[in-house]
């Protein structure tokens, strides 16, 4: 079915675009009427484990590519992904699609992730057709297709109690429209999406437990650029989401929520219908060396669109994100700070306030030395809004510090690299309730040194690593170890072979808990200038004394990657 659809798609696209190239033959390269470029990747993997259930499929294959065929000036950028992960019981893993374009006409066919607005059609995968038109000063888009296919449990699954059970779902369809004016820098767009579950797509036995839903959502997006560097961008969304289309309609509309009065003709008002708002506005100055964004975001509790993947809701947030590039780019600093709260409609028994702060400093004074430092903080404070024994005050702060210095020393004969990574993560709950996690401290450190003898094409590396997590009242877990490896280039330095081994000693509650040995051999073979082959094989041996933490096991992985760019 997939191959037929793909072929049909190609034919349709070529036919549909034939009218376009006829309009402007002067621009066509008649000497090369058909051009093909892009890439193709094939991966085969074999895996086996002894001592534990397989953590991966025993054999997997995956092929993906993004070829672009240009026929008489009309570009047909395809992409596809096929593998043996696909299964008829769930949403398709295999995907293929093409978005041919010519000047200001773009057509979408197949599996596409199109975005009209962050609150309406926001990149949700759709199997369907669409078009985008962007002639001067005008912006139009339309998409129609299937968001989810119907999945159910069949007799084969019922017969096998160990079979994987999927959640029954309806086939979900949608269409979306965008109309706007402007260009990429200054525009105003109005978008609309309607999505619905097809009731008859699911067998009757499951319809009682799975509610068919419907969604109508309208969005407004605008952007205005002032003085080339000041940008104001706003996105708004109003979603009418019906959680169960079978819910009884209100007979007395006047006594219900006010919005239903003026939209009752458009939307059947029921007790399962939500009327939800979301918006974000940001004002930014984007200079070459300095800049900042001021952001305000507010999303109603449970806001959702069938055209968007899940994002955090019931939130109001103010934040600022400055950056600076100083000393000719040797010093870069960027940060982020903000406050946010939830419980916008006082429906929760406690309101949470979060403080977010992060800063990243990258200092690279020369090609021999550089350091990257990062700090981030995420704090939550929860205060009760009503007198309730279930809403104890709760506080939690998460701090993360990461420091990554590096050194490079190179000359005509050799290259030396040294990299340190140090990370400290702290999770504390100054005021805790019964469901709080205990305080946690995590330390991660690693050191890597590599030396390459350039004339001989030989390299060697040494690494040390350590990690420890301490949980108050529960103990600690971690490991420390050493890694060693070597690489060599053969056949006029075209074929690279690398061998690496890492040995780690593990511990749990300050007691040794065995070891982990990982050995890996990899080889890169350039077949031609545009084709290459990578071979990878690894063996992992894990010996555990306390099998409640992890079992004793070993596993083998062998992988072949073939890449072709054309």
């Amino acid at each position, binding site marked *: 079915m997939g191959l037929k659809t793909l072929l049909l798609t190609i034919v349709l696209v070529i036919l549909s675009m034939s009218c376009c190239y006829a309009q402007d033959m002067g621009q066509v390269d008649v000497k090369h009427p058909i051009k093909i470029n892009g890439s193709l990747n094939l991966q085969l993997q074999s895996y086996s484990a002894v001592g534990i259930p397989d953590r991966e499929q025993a054999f*997997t294959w995956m092929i993906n590519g*993004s070829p672009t065929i240009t026929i008489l000036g009309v570009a047909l950028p395809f992409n*596809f*992904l096929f593998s043996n*992960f696909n299964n008829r019981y*769930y949403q398709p893993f295999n995907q293929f699609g093409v978005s041919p374009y010519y000047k200001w006409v773009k057509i979408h066919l197949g599996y596409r992730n199109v975005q009209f607005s962050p609150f309406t059609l926001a*990149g949700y*995968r759709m199997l369907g057709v669409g078009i985008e038109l962007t002639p001067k000063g005008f912006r139009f888009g339309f998409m129609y297709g299937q968001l989810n296919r119907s999945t159910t449990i069949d007799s084969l699954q019922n017969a096998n109690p160990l079979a*994987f059970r999927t959640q029954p779902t309806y086939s979900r369809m949608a269409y979306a429209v965008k109309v706007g004016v402007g260009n990429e820098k200054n525009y105003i767009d109005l978008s609309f999406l309607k999505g619905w579950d097809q009731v008859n797509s699911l067998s009757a036995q499951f319809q009682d437990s799975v509610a068919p839903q419907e969604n109508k959502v309208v969005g407004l997006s605008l952007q205005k650029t002032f003085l080339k560097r000041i940008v104001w961008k706003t996105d708004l969304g109003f979603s009418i989401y019906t959680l169960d289309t079978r*819910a009884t309609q*209100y007979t*007395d509309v006047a006594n219900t*929520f*006010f919005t239903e009065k003026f939209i009752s003709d458009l939307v059947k008002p*029921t*007790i*399962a219908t*939500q009327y*939800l708002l979301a918006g974000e506005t940001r004002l930014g100055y*984007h200079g070459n060396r300095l800049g900042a964004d001021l952001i305000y975001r507010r999303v109603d509790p*449970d806001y959702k669109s069938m055209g968007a*993947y*899940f*994002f*955090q*809701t019931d939130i109001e*947030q103010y934040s600022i*994100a400055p950056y600076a*590039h100083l000393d000719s780019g040797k010093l870069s600093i960027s940060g*982020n700070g903000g406050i946010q709260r939830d419980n916008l409609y*006082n*429906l*929760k*028994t406690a309101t949470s306030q979060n403080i977010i702060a992060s800063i*990243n400093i990258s200092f*690279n004074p020369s*090609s021999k030395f550089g350091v990257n430092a990062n700090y*981030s903080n995420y704090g939550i404070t929860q205060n009760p809004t*009503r*007198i309730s024994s*279930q809403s104890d005050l709760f506080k*939690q702060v998460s701090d*993360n510090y*990461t420091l*990554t210095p*590096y050194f490079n020393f190179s000359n005509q004969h050799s290259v030396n*690299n040294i*990299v*340190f990574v140090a990370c400290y993560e702290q999770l504390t709950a100054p005021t805790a309730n019964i*469901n*709080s996690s205990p305080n*946690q401290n*995590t330390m991660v450190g690693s050191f890597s*040194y*590599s030396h390459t003898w350039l004339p001989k094409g030989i390299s060697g590396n040494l*690494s040390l690593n350590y990690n420890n*997590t301490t949980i108050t009242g529960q103990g600690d877990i971690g490991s420390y170890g050493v890694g060693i490896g070597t690489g060599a280039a053969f056949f006029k330095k075209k074929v690279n072979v690398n061998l690496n081994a890492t040995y780690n000693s*593990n511990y749990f509650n300050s007691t040794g808990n065995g070891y*982990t040995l*990982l050995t890996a051999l990899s080889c890169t073979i350039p077949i031609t200038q545009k084709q290459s082959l990578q071979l990878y094989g690894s063996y992992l041996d894990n010996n555990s004394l306390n099998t409640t933490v992890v079992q004793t096991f070993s596993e083998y992985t062998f992988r072949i990657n073939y890449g072709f760019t054309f």
Partner: protein
Amino acid sequence: MKISAYLSNCFSKNKQCIITLALVVFSYQHASAQAQVNIAFVLKPPYSSYLKDYANLGDKSIITVTNLTATVKQLYLKGSVTNVSEGLYVRTGANYHPSGYITLQPHQTQVFTSSSNVTRFLDANNTETNIVNPDKRNMLRLAQLPEGIYHVCIQAYDFYSNALLSDQNGGCTTINITLASAPFITNPHNAQTIPAAGANSIVYTWTPPIGNLSGGRPVYDLVVVKVMPGQNSNEAINAARDYNANNPIIYKKGLATQTYISQPYDLKPEPGATYAMQVIAKDANNTLSFKNDGKSEIVVFTCDTNKTSPPAPTKTRVSTPGAGSSFTGKNQPYLQLESYTFKGKLVWGYKKN
């Protein structure tokens, strides 16, 4: 003391005892007259906050109705949902009278587990409430009940006389409704590049669900999966989480803490590959329901290619929540490139056309 001994002793003593006994017998008879029908009511956890799930109890409940008498009963059901701490209720209206009835033969028991007209007594058009604006408006706009402890009760009424047949205080169950959010991933950040030297011990952290967690015990599933070239990160996670596909490198279930450090025995991320991560909160006691079924926003990060190369600059998170979880402004530090010096004369020219 045996009942017979107590009675003989009582009758032989005084009149007051006889009056007391008469009152007890009378009250027993009165109670028996009220409780002609017994209702046992169970709501299936986790408990939803959506109004629609109470408007039609349908398959979300088990309602067992038993005729305690020796006569045929024709009855209908009424119910109420009451927020205990706030004293707010939604209940079947006084004027409610369905078109059909339940017929119970003497001492017969009927169990209702699926959607039917008899379970729609809390439907929007059949109810009354003491909730006033703005709370009522918000509740209807969001189609959700506020957080709190609720009593959900069902009573049986005679179809013809409208007399209460079941116990006034019976047929009740107590539930905890929560609007707890899904967890939020605090490390790694979205679009972060993990230094290859640190890829063996990646620190994954997240927040707990925020909301009323009373009676629950949150535990977490952690999924980390490679995003195939051209693949949407949400699709990659969905395939791994829901369908055991896509070979996740980490799929830990039932973690009790908000942190996980990848250990030497975990599957290794491939250098240069992009990974998607999600945390799913679940209630080990199976009473709480979290937003988005406890599934967090997805965070995408990349592992650096070369173990001994300088670390790629980390993009700073500009905004924590939102579509895609975070986004970066035009604040990327300059790329670190190797520099070469050439000496000589550069000659160039242009074609006439």
